[in-house]
């Protein structure tokens, strides 16, 4: 006799994680496309030589503001106001831009989540300290702080390695980027920590650290994951503002932010491609991250899956 009481949900094929993940992906083609876009830019960041043979620093001024010539031409995407090849600048700008975005968002997320979790869980003086610090950082204008950091590092030679060129903007942007994460996580921690499953975990003898990391955090992180993709866009464009002050990505390295900043002057001057090329790349990256962020949130929250 067959067991009729077996619920249908349990009757599905034995779990094979790889196959399950692939099936889930096939059901969401946008995730595949988004992943491909991110992969594409990641490859570009790692191996810029694959995409262009032109140096972004070869800028003959007589070739300034050439229109895009299409594939096969000397300047497939044209040249910018100084005569530099737009495609080459774009390709070589990927690494600093994306690295900066990932480092800034990653570190601020870590700081914000840690402080928010501690503040929300322990309350008392920990919360007082964290909340006041958040408020202090929120009221200091970004540009003022940027100028301060600039003066602190004046005359310090940081070198021109991959990390060195983004160090200054990274410090400034992290310093002023962690507060939203701390606030969101603190709020969701306050909500989650009084729920029964936290009490239940405690009744089974779980330590504070375990409760915070394994039980509170996964339930508190949801609001923050939605914030991440737009933060990446914010970091890339904020870097442009900083470079205007001379503390962005250090020349001769270049970035999308700098390109967008420079290109915006020529939108009405007959050379919109200088702005459009990096802008389209930025928008594509951010959209891809938004889609991946959604997929990530679904994967983290089993209630939304299936």
């Amino acid at each position: 006799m067959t067991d009729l009481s077996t619920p249908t949900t349990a009757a599905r094929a034995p779990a094979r994680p790889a196959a399950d993940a692939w099936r889930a992906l096939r059901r969401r083609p946008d995730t595949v496309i988004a992943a491909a876009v991110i992969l594409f830019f990641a490859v570009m960041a790692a191996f810029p030589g694959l995409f262009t043979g032109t140096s972004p620093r070869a800028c003959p001024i007589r070739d300034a503001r050439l229109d895009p010539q299409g594939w096969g031409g000397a300047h497939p995407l044209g040249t910018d106001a100084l005569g530099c090849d737009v495609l080459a600048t774009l390709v070589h700008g990927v690494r600093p831009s994306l690295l900066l975005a990932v480092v800034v968002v990653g570190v601020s997320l870590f700081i914000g989540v840690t402080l928010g979790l501690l503040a929300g869980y322990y309350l008392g003086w920990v919360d007082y300290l964290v909340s006041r610090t958040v408020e202090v950082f929120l009221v200091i204008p970004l540009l003022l702080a940027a100028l301060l950091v600039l003066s602190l590092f004046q005359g310090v030679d940081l070198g021109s390695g991959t990390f060195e060129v983004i160090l200054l903007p990274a410090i400034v942007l992290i310093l002023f980027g962690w507060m939203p994460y701390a606030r969101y996580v603190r709020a969701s921690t306050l909500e989650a920590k009084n729920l029964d499953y936290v009490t239940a975990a405690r009744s089974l003898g779980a330590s504070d650290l375990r409760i915070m990391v394994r039980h509170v955090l996964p339930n508190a992180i949801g609001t923050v994951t939605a914030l991440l993709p737009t933060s990446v866009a914010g970091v890339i464009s904020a870097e442009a503002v900083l470079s205007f002050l001379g503390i962005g990505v250090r020349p001769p390295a270049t970035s999308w932010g700098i390109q967008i900043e420079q290109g915006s002057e020529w939108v009405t001057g007959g050379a919109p491609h200088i702005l459009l090329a990096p802008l389209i790349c930025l928008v594509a990256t951010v959209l891809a991250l938004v889609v991946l962020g959604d997929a990530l949130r679904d994967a983290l929250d089993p209630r939304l899956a299936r």
Partner: protein
Amino acid sequence: MSGDTSAAAASSAADHDGVVGPGTPLLEVRDLAVEFRTPEGNVRAVDGLSYRVAAGRTLAVVGESGSGKSVSSLAVMGLLPDTARVTHGEVLLAGEDLLSLSRREHRRRCGERIAMVFQDALAALNPVHTVGYQLTEALRRRRGMSRRDAGRRAVELLDLVGVPNARGRVKDYPHQFSGGMRQRVMIATALALDPDVLIADEPTTALDVTVQAQVLRLLAEIQAERRMGLVLITHDLGVVAGMADDVTVMYAGRVVERAPVRDTFGAPAHPYTRALLHSIPSSGAGGDGEGRRLPVIPGRPPSPAALPTGCAFHPRCDTARDVCRTDPPPLEAVAVDRASACHFAAEVLASHDVPPPVEHEEAAHD
């Protein structure tokens, strides 16, 4: 599903219990008092609660909402919120006072020696982890069990509590279970570390009536099998009649009556217990009572912040006299194994005002 077999097991377990008799107390609470800090000052939620539970015995703690029954169990488990503190009393687990231990040591005993089943299983299971993970988190962490062994143990535990197709369901999330199954998972989680004492805080309140009976039967069965001490916190006297050996009735943070279940239900020694028993609806009793209104206890339980003088129950009591308004009655022995906190306990006990028989859970729902 597994109802028929467990019913038989439960009834045989109950018989078995009667033969064993009371052993040494596993858990003993002595004169426990818990206070909450509020803007209006300190409020005493539990005042002088004492009880003892022996291996293989079930103690029911009964009372209305706000009588302090849940707070007392949180105190035993060291789970009181920051605004509450234990002002005096002892919680002895096999002779060791839990309340004098450090927070860390207290927490180590929890789960290992004493575990708790919560009222709302959906809220008490973490929505982002599979039930298999939650069942074995403590085992993996505290016993250093390998992932593979833990997986096997999770299936065993689910089997133990009668979740069908346990192997297929360990990878499921709490929201994929029905209410009754979820409460079974909750019980399995509490049993994972093989505790000596289980505190069940209104384990069936969130369930519908037919499922309640199944879950209670499961609890009784497991308790008898493992010779655990069970503290059953409830406001359902039907559950008490079906499950418990002893009963402690609480009112406004104090114990008003303590007795073996059979004795209390036959002849209560406190007016509050008597009134509670009278206010149970019964289908069979009182043939002439067609259309008769169900007796209720007038008024409402007092706020712990503003307790009446004297006996806290006197404003609602049908036998209250002048002395009740001024002198709080002490909890005193009225018979063998029985105590009541009433100035007129002997009178109430002797009045032979026998309440209608309370239908047992099994009888009521099968």
